[in-house]
């Protein structure tokens, strides 16, 4: 019996290790293999065009450079894994960086490849204004800007018409009037949510309100003391009261929030360009009724919110051939032509200057909105570290159910800054 147990034990360990344990490490003579864990795979709209670009690159460099995509579609899991790897001292050859103050800490030390010198000149000029700044810390640029997120306000004009609202509100007074009329017609005026990791829709509204109150430099102001942030909070709070939003807004996640808009129940919404395809495919009536606009103006008008969503980064290396390979790949991914391909196939807006002809009505409106904006402000989630952003949602839930004043809301968030 003991022998049987021992044998079982050995088999339990040996079979998988012999058959399945280590497959990687094909010792190709001089081919440089760059492993790229990526979540632009599977159902992501960018998956197909990006895989195509990688294949073209590999063909062009057959025998010398090979980029291997490692699929990891779960973005939260991706982030956890990246954090754990870096804390253990291992950096993937190439990876996607969601740019925010927390992840910019990766720039410390010598972990990431520094592209500052390479970007001087034509390559650097090919990026949209401000995007290189977003990935530069202490004059070092250690990531290549890739995808932009613009989050304008979406209006369902069918609902507005049904409620007797003849134009998109441009001031807060017009906005509240719109809300009352929309309510009376039996619809939800605004979509809001306090859930998820960043209270996304409400967080975007808050960013718009701060921009409208404080202007292009609103985030330079001191969050704890400047009255602008309390004023914005009061306005956001009002959007939660008196039926100005859905009953499930407190605690709602992005699925619930988006669901209200897709169902044709809500008049005002916000999301990025990636959502366009969703609306088009699943709620064509809503798609046809959607118009992209700015938030109401207060002290400032015509503002839009947007930020650098993701960038490509790479592990630092002392091997010059390897370094050159990485730079080569980065350049390939960010040529105007290749950016155009991805943008047109996926509906995304990239950080590379490209001449994009969009066939999609709403995407065209997106581009127009950005071009027409008097200024663009980062969203709260891009400006502050993840724990502050998480606290935003928590504090918002408290204020929205009347358990905290707007001043306390601001104070609670400021306390974790």
């Amino acid at each position, binding site marked *: 019996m003991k022998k049987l147990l021992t044998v079982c034990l050995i088999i339990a360990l040996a*079979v998988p290790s012999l058959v399945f344990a280590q*497959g990687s490490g094909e010792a190709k003579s001089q081919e440089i293999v760059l492993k790229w864990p990526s979540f632009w795979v599977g159902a992501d709209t960018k998956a197909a065009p990006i895989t195509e670009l990688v294949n073209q690159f590999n063909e062009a460099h057959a025998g010398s450079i090979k980029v291997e995509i490692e699929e*990891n579609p*779960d*973005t939260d*899991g991706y982030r*956890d894994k990246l954090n754990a790897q870096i804390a253990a001292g291992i950096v993937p050859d190439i990876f996607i960086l969601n740019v925010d103050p927390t992840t910019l800490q990766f720039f410390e030390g010598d972990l990431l490849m520094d592209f500052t010198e390479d970007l001087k000149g034509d390559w650097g000029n090919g990026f949209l204004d401000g995007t290189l700044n977003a990935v530069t810390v202490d004059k070092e640029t250690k990531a290549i800007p890739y995808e932009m997120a613009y989050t304008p306000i979406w209006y369902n004009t069918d609902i507005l018409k049904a409620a007797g609202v003849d134009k998109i509100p441009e001031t807060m007074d017009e906005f509240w009037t719109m809300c009352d009329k929309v309510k009376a017609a039996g619809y939800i005026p605004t979509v809001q949510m306090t859930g998820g990791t960043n209270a996304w829709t409400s967080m975007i509204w808050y960013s718009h309100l701060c921009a409208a109150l404080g202007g292009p430099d609103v985030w330079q102001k001191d969050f704890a003391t400047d009255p602008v942030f309390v004023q914005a909070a009061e306005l956001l709070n009002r959007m939660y009261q008196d039926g100005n939003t859905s009953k499930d807004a407190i605690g709602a996640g992005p699925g619930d929030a988006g*669901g209200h808009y897709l*169902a044709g129940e809500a008049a005002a919404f916000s999301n990025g360009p*990636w959502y366009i395809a969703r609306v088009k495919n699943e709620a064509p009536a809503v798609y046809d009724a959607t118009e992209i606009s700015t938030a109401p103006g207060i002290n400032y008008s015509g503002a839009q919110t947007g930020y650098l969503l993701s960038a490509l980064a790479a592990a630092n290396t002392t091997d010059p051939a390897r370094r050159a390979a990485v730079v080569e790949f980065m350049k390939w991914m960010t040529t105007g032509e290749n950016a155009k391909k991805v943008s047109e196939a996926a509906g995304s807006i990239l950080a590379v200057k490209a001449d994009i002809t969009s066939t999609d009505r709403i995407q065209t409106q997106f581009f127009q909105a950005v071009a027409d904006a008097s200024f663009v402000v980062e969203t709260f989630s891009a400006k502050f570290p993840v724990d502050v952003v998480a606290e935003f949602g928590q504090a918002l839930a408290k204020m929205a159910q009347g358990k905290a004043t707007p001043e306390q809301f601001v104070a609670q968030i400021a306390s974790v800054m």
Partner: protein
Amino acid sequence: MIKTKSQIAVDIIAKIGKWLFIAFFLLMTLVPIIWLIITSFKSNLEYETEPLGLPKVWQWSNYAKALNMSGLPRLFLNSVIVAVCTTALNLIVSAMGGFALAREKFKAREPILSLLLAGVLIPIIAFMVPYFSIATKLKLYDSLLILIIVYAAINIPVSLFLIYGFMSDIPKELEEAAVIDGCSFSQRFTRVVFPLTKPGLVTAGTLVFIYCWNEFTYAMLLTSSVKSRTLQLGIRFFKGQFVVDYTSMLAAIVLTMIPTIFVYIFLHDKIISGMTAGAVKG
């Protein structure tokens, strides 16, 4: 035995109460599962806007998508290998250790027992960095073997807890009789205690199997390529950065549930009812 009227009344109330109790929990248990299956046939829009109705059109395409999940057979095989091997390894290790702790007295017994049992308190989520470190140092990153070892280790506290509990119940006389008959230490284990702990082993084993089957965090952390990917990672492919294909994901979840249900029904039930036919006590 003749019962008085009041005794009969109490009996009836108790009976009704018993059936209500069972019915209530049946409801609480089955409703989620039924909802899951129904929702897996809906479209995503329906899920988000009308989560409680029946699907207007039964979306068999969700199941087609789930079945077409890239590498599904390989993922399935990987999950099976990991679950089976982990359970075997974990049970052997826990049974051996449990035997030493439950049936022998020695000075270090209490401290070691407390040390091992303290492991149930530990939030494994805190160990991401060390586990990743260990995996790379052992050069086992991205292999099924590391998952087997890690899962087996993670489940030692709970398995040991359960097996130790069951082993403690076995009367000393049975072992003493075996020793008189000439059994050695190991033979007491293999011939007397191990067989008698089968209910405990099967219970612990079922829990370990199911843990392995459903585990996601460390499967994601410690593997990267298809050769060591498990089903749970495959399911996440329906989750994009901004758009989640919830209903296809549910279809995939329903599909992956089926093997575990079979394991539970056939292995656990059959063996337990077989074993408890011959009672231990008395």
